[in-house]
Every structure is written in structure tokens, then in C-alpha cells.
């Protein structure tokens, strides 16, 4: 109910939306309220006079006023508040002047007075003045045209005019003054606005310039990857760009929790660095450690009033100081310390710009550090690679010269002994022959050792190179192997050697002839060495482009736990080596050689029954053929 009445009242006294001016809105609302009150009252008065006539001449004052009110209300409601106000005041004045005039002067004056009050409130000064003049003219006319039957004493009139006039004049003056003040205020506000706009423009310009400076510094600096250069450049360029007295760059050493002076602008900076201006992070005095600890910018625009500021004898003209932390990736890289010789130099804008710059600088410094680390790592890698290459070179040179140096004396040892032994240099008795045979035997053993040690060294260093030939006659090699076997078994009539293959069916293969001979000789001589009775079988089969060679003996066999051991270098037992004449390297080398060809060497053995070795070699491996095409064999 209350809400509905409120809504009704609001809609009735609503101001037309076209009125934007606050003052005018006020007036319009005032008018609307006035009419909203007066119209119902007058409606009641009119109804009363209609329903209960008092006799006498019916006055048309009330209805006319009523109609005028309605019209004025509607006009106001439409948004023409000034027109409405003027219409109401002048209309009312005109009607009253014509009507009540005739009947009651004091009533007329009173009403006129009320009208004037309203006019002062609702109309402009000009309108009020016009109304005043018109009213005076009307009064004057009335005074002249009407008989002096007015029950007004001249004193009253004068008193009324003077008092009324004074009040009205005072009122209008007051209003005029208010209006003038308002106009002045508007002018002032405009002026203030213009000034603040101007200063804002100025600030924007300055800020832009500072940003450009910062970008300039940043751009120059981010290309420098050498840390020392970078930090010095930061100090010098920041000082120049922002017209500062001095700039120092401190780096933060995490391990020692120390701030270290890394660079400073100008010669003073150099001097300070030489003296070593370092201090711990938790140092209480000083803006720099504080900035480092709190990771925010610390500003002292007037150092004489700042208790934590520590004056520096090398920088006597510092009046304002700003310490900005440089943070990248949440890590404190260091602190940028800026000093100006003017108090209050560091405005909010400058602090903001420099903080942004500090971020960039932090990243640049971090980049330089990372670059340094990467460079160092790379250089180390290169050095290591060089060293490895040098070591490899030394190794192959060593192998080559060792081979030569170790073999050369054996030529004389073996052959001259042989000469004597065969009686070439004079007759030798049996004992002498025997002794010389033993010498030659030991010499051959030594040669075998030298060869095997060199081979295993090459194999383990990945320096084994095969000398590959096409059309290697495997059957020829087998012939000489068989011959060797028979020589070895000449003292063991209980052991039979059987060649289980057909020579015509054995193809020529692509291989390193010498190495294949080495493999077969090793297997066959082992079999001959260790077999005391029974049979040694050498069989060859060709299958799937692979040559399968099997050397089977009826020797003592190899226990299961040694099956892998025998293929490992230097694993033959001391006894086995001494009296067996082996080197302990034959099998490991043989396996590697077979594998180097793209083949394999495997073994099966049962203690008490014997041992069987299985060799596979490709007949014509593409990889080996490639090696021949590279000019490795004829």
C-alpha cells in the first residue's frame, strides 16, 4: 500500500527525463510538488463552491486558477519547467490582479506577495524583474484608474512597498549573487580540469619517456652474454638513462648469503669493486640488504631523514636512494642500487619504471649466467672429447709400435736358433737339437702371447679391423689346418682326426683369411692338446648362406660352471697355461673374430664325454663385401 502510494507519488512528481541540469531538475520537481499539492486542494475548493454556493456573484477566480494550474502542471510534466513556472506565476499574477483586485486590496497585496515569493524561487532574475515592473505598472494604473475606495492607508502601502520591496530586492540580490558564484565556480572547475588534464598529459609524456629509456637500456643489455660486461653495462646505462648520480649492481650469492658488489657506474664503481663492498644479506643497516631480504623496492627519497641509510664516503652527494631487487624465476639474482644527488628524485612513476627495468635486467643476468654455465659445460665436453681422441690416438700408435718392437727380435731368435738346430751351421748332437727345439718352442709361445695380447687389446678398444678378401678358398685353409692337426697328434696315436666334409662342396667365402685361420687353428689345436684318446672330428655344412663348422673332441670336457668363463680373457688356469702352452686368450679372441664377421662361436660340453665347438660364418656377407669395396682387399 505504502509502496503503491510511493510509486504513484513518484510518477506524479516525476521530472521529465530530458532535463539533465541538476538545478533545473530541482525546479521542475518543486513545481511538480507544488501543483500536486495545490491541484487537489483547489479541486476541493471548487467543488465546495459549486456544491455549496455562498450566494453573491460566483467568482471565476478559483476555476481559472485551477485550469491554469492543470495546464502549468502538464507543461512541467512534459519537461518545460521554465515555461510552466513563468506561465504559472505570470498567469496567477494576471488573474489575481484582475479579479481580487476589485474586491480586497490587502488580500490582493498578500496574494501578490506570495506570487512574488514563488517567482523569486522559480523564475530567473530577469523574469522576476519583469514581473516586478509589470506589477508596479499595474498597481500604478490601478491607483490611477480606480476610485480611492481602497481600504488601505497610504502608510500601509508605503510600508508594504518599502518592506516588501526591500525583502524582494534582498532576495533577488542574494539569488543573483548565488548565480554569479555558481558561474564563477563553474569557470574555476573548468580551469582546474584543464590544468589537471595538462599535468596528466605531462605525466604521461614523462612516463613514456622513462619507459623508452628503460626499453633502450633493456635492449642494449639483453644482448650482452658476458656476465662482467653485462653488469657494468647495466650500471653505466641505467645511470645515464635516468640522469642519476651513481648506480651499483649487487649480485646475491645464495650459498654464503652475501650481497656482492658486482659492478658500479663510472670509475667510482670500479674503485668500489676493487675495495670489495660486500655484505651479508641480514645486515640491518642499508637499503640494499633490506631490498634483498624483503624482495621489494626500498626507497629513501631524502637520505638525511632515513635511519637505515648508510652514507658511502665515495659517494658524498647522494641525496636520494632507491634499492630495487632483481628477481627472475622467483630467485633473487641481486639488487640494483640507484642514487641521485637531488632530494625526492624518485617519483612513483620513476620507481615503477625502474622496477620493470629491474625485472628485465634480472632475466638478462640470469641468461648470462646460464649461458656461462652452458659454455663451460660445452668447453669441458670439447676438452674431454679431445682428450679421448688423443688417448685413442696414443693407444693405436702404441699398439702399432709395440707390435713392431716385440716381433722384430723374435725373427732373429726363432730363425737363428732354427739354423743351428737344423745343422745348417755345423753338426749338432741330439742333446743340442733337443735344447734348441725347446728354445724355438718357447719362442713360438712368446710370439703367440704377443699376438694374442695385441689382439685382445685391439678387440677391447674397439680397434679391430678385418682385412676382408673375396673368394677366400676355405677348402685350402682347411687343408692346412688338417695338416697342422696331424702334426700335433703325431705323438698321440690313440687319437684319430676325422675330416667330415666334401672339399668340392665348400664354397669360397668373403672373409679375413688370416682371422678365420686363427679361429679354426685355435679350436683344432685345443682339441688336439686336451684329447688323450678317441677322436677329433672337423665337419663343415653349408646352410642358409652360412658356413657351419663343428670341431668335436672326446677330451675331458669342461665343467658347467666354466662354460662361460672360458670365453672371458685371462681366465685359463695357471696350470693350463704353463703346460698346455695356451695363452688364455685364444677362445675369447676367436669368439670376437667370428662375431666381427657376422658369425658366432658356441660350445657344448659334458665332463667325461668331450667338448664340441660350433662356428658359423657368413658365406658372403653384404657388410663384409662393403669393406672390400672400400679397397680393403684385392
Amino acid at each position, binding site marked *: 500500500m505504502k509502496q503503491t502510494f510511493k510509486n504513484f507519488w513518484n510518477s506524479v512528481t516525476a521530472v521529465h527525463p530530458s532535463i539533465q541540469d541538476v538545478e533545473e531538475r530541482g525546479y521542475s520537481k518543486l513545481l511538480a510538488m507544488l501543483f500536486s499539492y495545490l491541484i487537489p486542494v483547489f479541486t476541493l475548493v471548487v467543488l465546495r463552491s459549486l456544491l455549496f454556493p455562498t450566494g453573491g456573484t460566483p467568482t471565476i477566480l478559483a476555476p481559472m486558477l485551477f485550469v491554469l494550474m492543470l495546464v502549468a502542471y502538464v507543461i512541467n510534466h512534459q519537461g518545460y519547467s521554465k515555461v510552466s513556472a513563468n506561465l504559472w506565476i505570470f498567469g496567477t499574477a494576471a488573474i489575481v490582479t484582475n479579479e481580487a483586485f476589485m474586491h480586497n486590496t490587502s488580500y490582493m497585496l498578500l496574494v501578490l506577495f506570495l506570487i512574488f515569493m514563488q517567482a523569486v524561487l522559480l523564475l530567473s532574475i530577469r523574469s522576476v524583474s519583469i514581473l516586478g515592473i509589470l506589477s508596479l505598472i499595474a498597481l500604478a494604473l490601478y491607483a490611477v484608474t480606480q476610485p480611492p475606495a481602497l481600504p488601505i492607508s497610504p502608510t500601509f502601502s508605503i510600508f508594504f512597498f518599502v518592506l516588501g520591496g526591500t525583502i524582494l530586492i534582498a532576495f533577488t540580490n542574494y539569488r543573483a549573487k548565488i548565480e554569479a558564484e555558481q558561474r564563477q565556480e563553474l569557470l574555476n572547475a573548468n580551469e582546474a580540469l584543464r590544468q589537471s588534464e595538462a599535468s596528466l598529459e605531462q605525466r604521461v609524456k614523462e612516463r613514456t619517456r622513462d619507459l623508452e629509456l628503460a626499453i633502450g637500456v633493456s635492449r642494449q643489455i639483453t644482448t650482452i652474454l658476458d656476465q662482467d660486461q653485462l653488469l657494468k653495462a647495466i650500471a653505466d646505462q641505467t645511470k645515464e638513462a635516468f640522469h642519476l648520480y651513481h648506480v651499483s649492481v649487487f649480485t646475491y650469492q645464495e650459498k654464503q648469503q652475501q650481497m656482492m658488489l658486482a659492478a658500479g657506474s663510472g670509475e667510482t664503481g670500479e674503485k668500489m669493486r676493487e675495495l670489495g663492498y660486500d655484505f651479508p644479506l641480514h645486515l640491518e643497516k642499508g637499503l640494499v640488504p633490506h631490498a634483498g631480504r624483503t624482495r621489494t623496492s626500498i626507497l629513501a627519497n631524502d637520505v638525511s631523514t632515513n635511519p637505515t641509510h648508510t652514507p658511502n664516503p665515495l659517494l658524498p652527494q647522494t641525496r636520494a636512494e632507491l634499492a630495487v631487487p632483481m628477481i627472475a624465476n622467483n630467485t633473487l639474482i641481486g639488487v640494483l642500487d640507484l642514487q641521485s644527488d637531488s632530494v625526492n628524485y624518485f617519483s612513483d612513476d620513476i620507481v615503477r619504471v625502474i622496477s620493470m627495468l629491474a625485472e628485465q635486467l634480472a632475466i638478462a643476468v640470469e641468461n648470462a649466467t646460464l649461458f656461462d654455465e652452458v659454455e663451460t659445460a660445452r668447453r669441458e665436453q670439447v676438452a674431454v672429447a679431445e682428450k679421448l681422441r688423443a688417448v685413442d690416438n696414443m693407444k693405436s700408435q702404441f699398439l702399432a709400435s709395440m707390435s713392431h718392437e716385440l716381433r722384430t727380435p723374435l*725373427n*732373429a731368435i726363432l730363425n737363428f736358433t732354427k739354423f743351428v738346430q737344423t745343422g745348417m751351421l755345423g753338426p749338432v748332437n741330439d742333446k743340442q737339437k733337443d735344447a734348441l727345439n725347446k728354445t724355438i718352442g718357447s719362442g713360438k709361445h712368446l*710370439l703367440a702371447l704377443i699376438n694374442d695380447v695385441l689382439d685382445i687389446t685391439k678387440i677391447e678398444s674397439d680397434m679391430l*679391423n678385418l682385412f676382408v678378401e673375396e673368394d677366400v678358398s676355405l677348402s685350402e685353409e682347411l687343408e692346412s689346418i688338417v695338416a697342422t692337426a696331424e702334426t700335433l697328434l703325431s705323438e698321440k696315436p690313440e687319437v684319430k682326426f676325422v675330416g667330415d666334409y666334401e672339399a668340392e662342396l665348400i664354397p669360397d667365402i668373403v672373409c679375413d683369411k688370416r682371422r678365420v685361420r686363427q679361429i679354426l687353428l685355435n679350436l683344432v689345436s685345443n682339441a688336439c692338446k686336451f684329447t688323450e684318446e678317441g677322436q677329433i672330428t672337423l665337419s663343415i655344412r653349408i646352410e642358409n648362406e652360412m658356413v657351419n663348422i663343428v670341431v668335436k673332441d672326446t677330451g675331458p670336457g669342461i665343467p658347467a660352471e666354466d662354460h662361460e668363463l672360458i670365453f672371458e680373457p685371462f681366465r685359463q688356469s695357471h696350470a693350463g697355461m704353463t703346460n698346455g702352452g695356451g695363452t688364455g686368450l685364444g677362445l675369447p679372441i676367436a669368439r670376437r673374430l667370428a662375431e666381427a664377421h657376422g658369425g658366432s662361436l658356441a660350445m657344448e660340453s659334458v665332463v667325461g664325454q668331450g667338448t664340441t665347438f660350433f662356428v658359423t660364418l657368413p658365406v658372403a656377407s653384404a657388410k663384409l663385401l662393403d669393406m672390400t669395396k672400400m679397397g680393403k682387399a684385392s
Partner: protein
Amino acid sequence: MLLKNKRVFIVEDDAGNLAIASVYLRQQGATVFYERWGRDTPQMILKHLPIDVILMDLMFPNNVSGFDIFDQIRQFKQLEHIPVVAVSAADPDSAMPKALAKGFSGFISKPISPRISKHIARIIEGKKVWAAEDMTGF
């Protein structure tokens, strides 16, 4: 007599090695000439033509290498066609490919055995012999 009437030229600086090789080759009927220092080799060989095969050590004093001497020999038209065999204690794995690439007709490892004559005979026949170790039946 594997090398009957064959003429062999040995280029070798060590007297012992020279003696050994000469003995074995002569045992098989070859006539052996030699030059010890590797300096005037082509001239010496020219003096003893015709030669069926040249045996060349690979290491000589004063940093002279058998490969250099080989080049010198091949400069001469009359010596172009004579097969040259390397006889060396050098590691066959590294020396044989080099010798092959150079144009040697074979490589025989030191220490040598009497079988050297067999290899030389084959080379004179025109075959290539890349025989590294050969102590079988020594």
C-alpha cells in the same frame, strides 16, 4: 726348388733379418740381391735386372718408409711391373690395408719362416699373398 732360377731383390736394413730371408730363399734356389739402406734402391735394382720380385721392409732409419721407396721404384719404367712384397714386423691390421692401397702385391709378417719361399713363388706367379702370421710347421 720352389724358386729355381728366380732373382729376388731384398730391401732390408737389419743384417740379421737379411741373412735369415736370404738363407731361406737361397735354399729354394733363388738368387738374392740386396740393398741395406733404402737410399739408392732404384739404381741398385736397375743394376741387377732382370728381377722377379722385390722384398721390402717397411721401416728404415732416418724416417724413411718402405712406402716412399716403393714410390721411388715405380717412377722407373723398367721397374713398373716388378711385384713388390712387404716383409715387416708391423701390425698387419694397420699395415696390410696400406700396402694394398699403395700397390704392393703382398704382405708377409715377421718373424718369417721357411714358408716365405712358398709365398714368394706364388707372388712371382702373379698371385697376391696377404699372409700375416705363418708359424705353422716352423
